[in-house]
């Protein structure tokens, strides 16, 4: 079903809520960049980081590096632990709201378990 011709252009309203991640491409361990806290929220939402006691900060810390490496494993990306362009692009993709890792015990299948072993 597509919108009929003649309706006002609603493309501006269809903005990706994760488009700001694009500005974080190239970030790595030790960086401090505005917006990293939001990306930590994303990683926490999908099970890669535990929920913070208060608010996340904008530091690219060791926990974030580990979380990104796990994310890269899960999505078949090179596990650099850095926010390279391919990782950021994948994170901006529309996706299911169900977490990839639940209670730290469920991951995304045998590929990841195999690599970890």
């Amino acid at each position: 079903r597509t919108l009929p011709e003649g309706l006002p252009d609603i493309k501006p309203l269809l903005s990706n809520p994760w488009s700001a991640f694009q500005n974080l491409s190239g970030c790595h361990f030790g960086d401090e960049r505005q917006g990293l806290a939001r990306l930590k929220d994303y990683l926490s939402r999908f099970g890669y980081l535990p929920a913070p006691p208060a608010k996340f900060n904008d530091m690219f810390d060791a926990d974030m590096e580990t979380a990104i490496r796990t994310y890269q494993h899960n999505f078949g990306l090179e596990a650099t632990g850095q926010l390279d362009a391919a990782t950021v692009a994948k994170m901006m993709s529309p996706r299911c709201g169900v977490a990839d890792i639940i209670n730290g015990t469920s991951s995304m299948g045998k590929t990841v378990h195999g690599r970890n072993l």
Partner: protein
Amino acid sequence: YSYFPGSPSWPRSKKSLRYAITAATETTIDRATLSRVFASAFARWSAATTLNFTETASASDADITIGFHSGDHGDGEAFDGPLGTLAHAFSPTDGRFHLDASEAWVAGGDVSRASLDAAVDLESVAVHEIGHLLGLGHSSVEGAIMYPTITSRTQKVELANDDVVGIQSLYGGNPNFKGVTPPATSSEETHSAA
């Protein structure tokens, strides 16, 4: 493939599951189209398993309820407007399946020809979420239905071998299931993979 913690599934005695499209659902897609799209999505899982699915008009009679919602809709998993998260579903035997009403859903027709870049194929998302309703978690296999992301303006509705092995381990296989059709691969892709 993966399962939710504890590998929850529907009871072995319950081979027939009823689903309802909730009346208060926030979408302009007509009811007949919704019925057709969800029936097709459920049929893809019943083809591979010993499970059967039938639509029922009453949510109180249903094992599975399907609804379109916006923003915070009371389950602690607020939707975020167009793109971002598209839908979510709960593990067995909860049965709730929620879709983000703000998406530019395409229900039938060729989604690749939709006028909006952000168009999302409803059946593709439905097939994925039904996997969660039946007990599957996410998969690392990019071609699998249970891979967590989908590209807008694309359709992905066929179960991959990874999905089939995962679901048949939970519920057993349908003896009439013909198996998965390998995705078409162009010579360029083959060369690239090599």
